[in-house]
């Protein structure tokens, strides 16, 4: 036992497993109450209260919904490809959770599971793998509408992935590293707005050449998570609920969970790249133990703000039609992202010269 404890690899692996277990547990709890928060916020925006009957202030709504879903009967279409039908919901959840292993939620090395030196590429790789869930779900259901919905969803996701990847390049140019921990570190401290004496936190979005990339990334993140106003392929009433038409009970719940996991992951990535990650005021004042915890607190605060924004946008804007959606992605966002790369590269080169 002592020999194991001295083995570096074993200790690192053990820590990683512990952190992953904590993240998974917390994440499941967050998603449960995110669903509840969505229903409550949506209700208040529509001038009604959301669910408030089950439990105090309706807080037990989602756990009991999950329980109800567990007991529902599962239908599997007769001609469906059984193996792929079962795997597709798992594929919806798996990439999002893997991305969490590279996101720094507080000062490293305690609050990040692993600091891969190409962390941003891990995020892009996992969002590429997320397309499979939709495609395979649509195809394995042996249902025309599900297939069309699945193919539409995947085409939408791969189109917006391009603009998303390109819009992260100005961030990389500024921070000089692909590692997410490095990107957060490059946003430490404050800087004065040139020409004035006003200090701003040195977050990504407060630099002028990262504002448009942030806007592009924000729009692409709505499309990537299949959320309104880009949720035509999966909305109820359009193409009979799209790719998850034939799914019931826990498998459908997995897709639903996968969508919320994706939402949380993309908000975390946006915070890491553009909003300073876990940086915030007063962290030095609290000493070596509570300072990092305050860092985690700032991260969660920013995450909540972004999730509220996502929910707000969903219930504010009408849906985009599919051809409008694809036209917007290819003809507006992609050229904008390319232009951003050129502008940021030119500015940084001129400034360094």
């Amino acid at each position, binding site marked *: 036992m002592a020999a194991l404890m001295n083995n570096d690899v074993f200790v690192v692996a053990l820590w990683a497993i512990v952190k992953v277990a904590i993240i998974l547990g917390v994440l499941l709890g967050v998603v449960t109450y995110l669903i509840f928060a969505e229903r409550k916020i949506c209700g208040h925006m529509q001038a009604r209260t959301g669910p408030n009957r089950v439990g105090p202030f309706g807080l037990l709504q989602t756990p009991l919904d999950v329980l109800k879903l567990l007991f529902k009967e599962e239908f599997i279409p007769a001609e469906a490809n059984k193996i792929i039908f079962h795997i597709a919901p798992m594929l919806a959840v798996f990439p999002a959770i893997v991305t969490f292993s590279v996101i720094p939620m507080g000062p490293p090395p305690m609050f990040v599971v692993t600091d891969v030196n190409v962390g941003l590429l891990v995020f892009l790789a996992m969002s*590429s793998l997320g397309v499979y869930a939709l495609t395979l779900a649509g195809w394995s259901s042996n249902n025309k509408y599900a297939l069309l919905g699945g193919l539409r969803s995947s085409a939408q996701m791969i189109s917006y992935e391009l603009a998303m990847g390109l819009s992260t390049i100005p961030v990389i140019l500024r921070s000089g590293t692909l590692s997410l921990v490095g990107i957060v570190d490059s946003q430490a401290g404050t800087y004065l707005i040139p020409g004035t004496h006003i200090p701003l936190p040195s977050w990504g979005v407060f630099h002028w050449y990262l504002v448009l990339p942030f806007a592009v990334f924000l729009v692409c993140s709505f499309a990537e998570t299949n959320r309104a106003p880009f949720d035509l392929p999966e909305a109820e009433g359009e193409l009979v609920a799209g790719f998850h038409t034939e799914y019931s009970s826990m498998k459908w719940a997995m897709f639903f969970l996968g969508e919320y996991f994706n939402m949380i992951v993309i908000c975390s990535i946006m915070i890491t790249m553009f909003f300073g990650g876990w940086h915030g005021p007063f962290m030095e004042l609290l000493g070596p133990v509570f300072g990092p915890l305050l860092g985690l607190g700032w991260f969660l605060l920013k995450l909540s703000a972004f999730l509220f924004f996502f929910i707000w946008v969903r219930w504010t804007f009408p849906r985009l039609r599919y051809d409008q959606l694809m036209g917007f992605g290819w003809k507006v966002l992609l050229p904008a992202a390319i232009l951003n790369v050129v502008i940021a590269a030119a500015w940084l080169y001129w400034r360094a010269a």
Partner: protein
Amino acid sequence: MVPVLFLGFGALLVATALMVVLHRNPVTSALFLVLAFCSLAGIYLLLHAEFIGLVQIIVYAGAIMVLFLFVIMYLNLPHDVEHGTHIAVRRGIGWMVGALMLLFATLLMRRGWAPGPENAAMIGQEHGNAAAIGRELYSRFLFPFEVTSMLLLVAMVGAIVMTKARRPAGEERP
């Protein structure tokens, strides 16, 4: 630890590659190929080529195989049915050729099949890093880089032109 992981990923790679070639249903073959690419990416990570490993997942598993799946679903292909003597004969010849090639490869490598003295200096942080690749890509390999981007443009335009639906001659373009 690392050799164990390599053997694991290697076994997975060989198994999934065999399933690609052997399985009757093209969709299942494509999915096994995705798994093969992911295990290959794992091997790249073990060889300290992190950038290439993740680009492998982004490009091969995440884009090329999605394209394959789209086409297979669009064509709505059934399971491959293969009966008949001539096909069995051809199949036998195919497997023999494969076995012969493997034999040749083994014989060729026998000469220099040394596990090699373990290189004392480990590959440092430099290698496999995106910065190292970028430095070379934009200086020594600039011309191939530009040519490849032209190639991608041509391929994209060509694929779109080739698969456009044909309008019957004589119809007015709106």
